[in-house]
């Protein structure tokens, strides 16, 4: 969904084909300012907490809580100190590690299941897919407690395996990828079958390459979702060496005293990758949401 597509269905208040004379130009200018100024003001309001966060993270502790947001001098060493007062590098690594595993499993198994639902003909296909659809609507909180019990029984509490497994097989990815795979023309499969290709080959050589946008979207969503995930690590993890970022942030105060400037530095650093990813991959994210995917 690029900007131009939307521009194509722009409101007719500004006739596109009109020749540019002085008057429409002035009108266009005023029109542009009219929409830009309120948007900029709203965007500023939305950004204020972030601005405060970054500025506070650069203050010395004695200036935290003053009405003036600006630090008297920029203390970049706050960022370095975060890594000293808590094991921030490890939390970072753990978050990315866990999110990567979950994403990998999620994408692979979802793609395979979506393939079965979209490209193969078999009895009972629709019924089982309906089951998948129904589970999407289930409140996750209902399942948390039995899942925790499963982890107790498997002796996986306080381990990465226990953290990864229950999150790695969601129905949502199957649904999303099936939507993508359904758009691939069946004639491709037919001709491949004529040439003697089995499902396995078709999956890897036709369906997967053609579902690339869907795979990328799912990868982004799963990764983002698990990077931010909070509940399951909160109940699963005991050892500080296994903490992920959200848990590390949650217990920041209890492990390092009340240092708001350091806390804000940590918050900034944990948000930063998200912001970068969003800016770089905006196209896929916005499109994924509008197709029907939503950050899980």
């Amino acid at each position, binding site marked *: 969904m690029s900007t131009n597509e939307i521009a194509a269905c722009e409101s007719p208040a500004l006739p596109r084909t009109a020749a540019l004379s002085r008057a429409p130009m002035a009108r266009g200018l005023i029109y542009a300012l009219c929409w830009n100024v309120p948007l900029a003001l709203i965007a500023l309001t939305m950004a204020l907490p972030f601005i405060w966060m970054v500025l506070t993270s650069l203050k010395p*502790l004695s200036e935290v809580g003053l009405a003036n947001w600006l630090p008297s001098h920029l203390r970049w060493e706050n960022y370095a100190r975060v890594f000293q007062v808590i094991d921030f590098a490890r939390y970072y690594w753990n978050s990315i590690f866990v999110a990567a595993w979950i994403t990998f499993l999620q994408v692979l198994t979802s793609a395979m299941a979506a393939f079965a639902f979209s490209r193969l003909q078999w009895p009972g296909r629709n019924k089982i897919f309906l089951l998948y659809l129904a589970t999407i609507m289930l409140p*996750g909180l209902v399942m948390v407690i039995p899942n*925790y019990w499963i982890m107790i029984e498997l002796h996986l509490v306080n381990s990465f395996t226990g953290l990864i497994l229950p999150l790695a097989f969601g129905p949502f990815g199957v649904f999303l990828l099936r939507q993508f795979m359904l758009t691939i023309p069946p004639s491709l499969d037919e*001709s491949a079958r004529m040439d003697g290709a089995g499902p396995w080959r078709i999956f890897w050589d036709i369906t997967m*390459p053609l579902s690339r946008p869907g795979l990328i979207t799912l990868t982004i969503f799963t990764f983002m*979702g698990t990077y931010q995930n909070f509940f399951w690590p909160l109940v699963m993890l005991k050892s500080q*060496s296994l903490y992920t970022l959200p848990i590390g942030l949650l217990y920041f105060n209890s*492990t390092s005293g009340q240092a708001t400037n350091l806390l804000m530095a940590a918050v900034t650093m944990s948000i930063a990758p998200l912001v970068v990813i969003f800016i770089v991959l905006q196209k896929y994210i916005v499109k994924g949401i509008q197709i029907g995917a939503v950050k899980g």
Partner: protein
Amino acid sequence: MENLLPWGIRAVTLPGGAENGRFHPRLREWGGAVIGGPGNMDIKHILLLGLVLLTAASVLTDVNLPSHRRRYPVLHWVTDDNPARVVELAPLKNWLRRHRYPMFTVHLDFANDDMSKFVIQGVSGDADTLVDTFDDDLDYLHDCNLLYNLTPDAKKMGFDLSHTYPAVKATVVRNGRQYLYPTNVNVLDYWVNKAAFAKYHQPPPPRTWTFAEFQRIGRAFVRAANPPGRRPKVFFTNSVDTRIMRRSLGLSAFNETLTRCTLADPRYVRVLRLMYRWTFVDHLLPTPAEEASFATHPGYGGPDFQMFNNGQFAMLYTGRWMLIQLRKFYKTTGPVPLAVCEPPYGNFPNALLFTRATGIYIGSPRKKLAEYFLKYLTSRAYNMQIIRDGDAEPPNPVYARSRRFLDPPQYPNEWGCTAVEVRAIQTIAIPRAYSPFVLPWTVSRIMRTDAEAGFMAGIYTARQAASLAADRINRHIIHNIRHSQRLRRLYDKLRRRQKIIDCLRKEKRKVPLRLITNPFYRRYYVAKGWAR
């Protein structure tokens, strides 16, 4: 399980026509080679690479876990975030070496210092070896059967009850079995910043006082210390203890046989009203909201110690452990002249013993080593460290009598303070009333979070809060005895005793002491001369 946005949506399809993905532009015929093209990696290979990388990362992560890189076995100790713990552990290594005990290291775990967290971890089979309990935590752990019974080993190795204060017994023993050894022992008292009183030309408070005296002195202080018409910035104290006040009026949370919660009583209502009045009318202490706003003070104990040192709190309701932090302030602000007062009493002076005590998690494979740690807590090395460092009273009373402890030579401003606390431990301290029919943890949650916080927030009147607390606790008792035969029998037996006691009291006759199980009433009846 998903990370739900606040009003976020975990959504599916747009009901309108959803636009679908487009075809790969480079698709010409079927076959992976064509689609992949040079420089554009095949998805299969990407996934394969991902798998290899992830496997490598897993190995790397596992190798890098701290537990794989230690020379000696590590015991994790769940305890409070307190700089003193670090210092108190320092002599351990030498002590182990000197006595030729097996070598181990102890790691502090502040992040799990939360009983409900520990219990969940414990019943799930993975919790730290050493666990600190405070106040009434033992009942919770004992109820879940999460601690080793230390009785035989304690006697053998020398950390049994004969090595600590007699009053501690109620905290560390259940059903005649010892589960804990104290890390330190304390009563709570008002520590007085005499400089703050002098600054506003107020005489320092007396060592003991009644509610009325407390109120009069407090109001005079707050009036002198704050400009009129504004919200006060300087407070008389940080908190009042409703439990001690209530008990000083002769009211325990439970009846004589611990079968019923008796909080729905005008005496408790009176105490609640006093607390409200002192907070919101007289401003002797900060409101909960003001307390939450005392901002970002780094270091142990949060803002309270700092504010006490500044004189923003003239008195602090705390224990000797405050000295850990206070002595650090001496270096910059000079020593504060200190005194200690007891809490205000109605007609029956009493004190509550707060014991921090350590036990061993039943699922831990390192019980033997952990017992050496408990032995260490009785040692001279550990106890002298506490005395030097300003934590609460040492667990081993042998060391609490030393002159160096009571009147530390390098801190003349503290002289006489600790003696008040030690005397309270040895004379008026009465253990809390633990009813076997309801978890103390539930009782204090209902009392503090439901009733008292609700009352202070203005949701309930004092009378409603008192009857709500009693009502909920009694409902728990009824529920618990209904689900346990053993409790039911005990309950019936004690109810019969209670009837006898009630009859005797009505006829103003003396009650045989053996009928009373509530430790508070045992003392109270004797003091009042109601017992025989």
